[in-house]
């Protein structure tokens, strides 16, 4: 009698979880902008047996944005998930993998991310700050002021903006813009940048040094600015596609 088909695999089955973890590493490794994502839930799984030790797996994954920018070398397990009150961002991914002799490989993946709805946040936390558009004029002003402030206080290496990661605006108890943005070291000091900014270039790939800044700019009732930046140091093989190069 033909062998009974194997029992259907569930979304919490260790083999499926291993496939999902492999898929999340692949997704983060192939993303060039924004933040890294962590697995929140395996929504659906379909398995097609291709033969002995050969399966095709279709996974529907529910991910959540972490606080680690894509250039941050911190291991994903140490990256905390953005909390609901910080206006969480969810990623939905469909991933097709193959498992041959126990080895996974990703054949295709498609993801899209979206912030939690403002209504959801307001319902649970009326005064929580909400995500702002990255091209909001207050956001751009906060980023520019923060980077200028940091560069003026750390004159040895002039840092250049790579991308704004996220921005939230709040109006209670003070009016404040909180921003996060990725930066890179250049071949200039702050003084050289002041004299001739056009001569300042990002360091070449074999010396690249990326970093990340967070800043809070209070605009009412007083004016105040706090900016902090952290450079990660050179990470061999880690590149950042400059606008225009990146096709993704």
């Amino acid at each position, binding site marked *: 009698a033909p062998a009974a088909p194997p029992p259907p*695999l569930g979304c919490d089955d260790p083999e499926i*979880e291993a496939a999902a973890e492999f898929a999340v590493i692949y997704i983060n490794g192939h993303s060039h902008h924004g933040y890294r994502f962590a697995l929140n839930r395996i929504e659906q*799984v379909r398995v097609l047996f291709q033969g002995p030790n050969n399966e095709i797996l279709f996974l529907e994954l529910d991910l959540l944005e972490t606080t680690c920018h894509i250039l941050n070398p911190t291991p994903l397990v140490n990256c905390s998930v953005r909390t609901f009150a910080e206006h969480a961002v969810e990623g939905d991914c469909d991933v097709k993998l193959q498992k041959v002799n126990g080895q996974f490989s990703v054949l295709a993946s498609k993801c899209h991310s979206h912030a939690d709805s403002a209504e959801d946040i307001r319902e649970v936390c009326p005064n929580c700050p909400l995500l702002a558009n990255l091209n909001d004029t207050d956001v751009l002003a906060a980023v520019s002021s923060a980077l200028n402030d940091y560069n003026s206080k750390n004159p040895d290496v002039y840092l250049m903006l790579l991308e704004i990661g996220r921005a939230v605006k709040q109006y209670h108890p003070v009016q404040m813009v909180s921003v996060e943005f990725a930066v890179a070291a250049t071949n200039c000091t702050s003084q050289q940048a002041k004299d001739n900014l056009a001569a300042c270039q990002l360091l070449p790939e074999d010396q690249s040094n990326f970093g990340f800044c967070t800043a809070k700019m209070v605009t009412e009732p007083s004016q105040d600015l706090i900016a902090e930046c952290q450079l990660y140091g050179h990470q061999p093989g880690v590149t950042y596609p400059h606008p225009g190069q990146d096709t993704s």
Partner: protein
Amino acid sequence: SVAKRAAAEVAQHDKVPHPVGFVPPPPLCPGKIRHFKI
């Protein structure tokens, strides 16, 4: 409609009642939530 009713009755009789204390297996998907649900 007679056939349908009959079929429905037969199906009902054929349906084997679960034994007392039967606990249906948990759904295979979606899986557990690791952080929180948006």
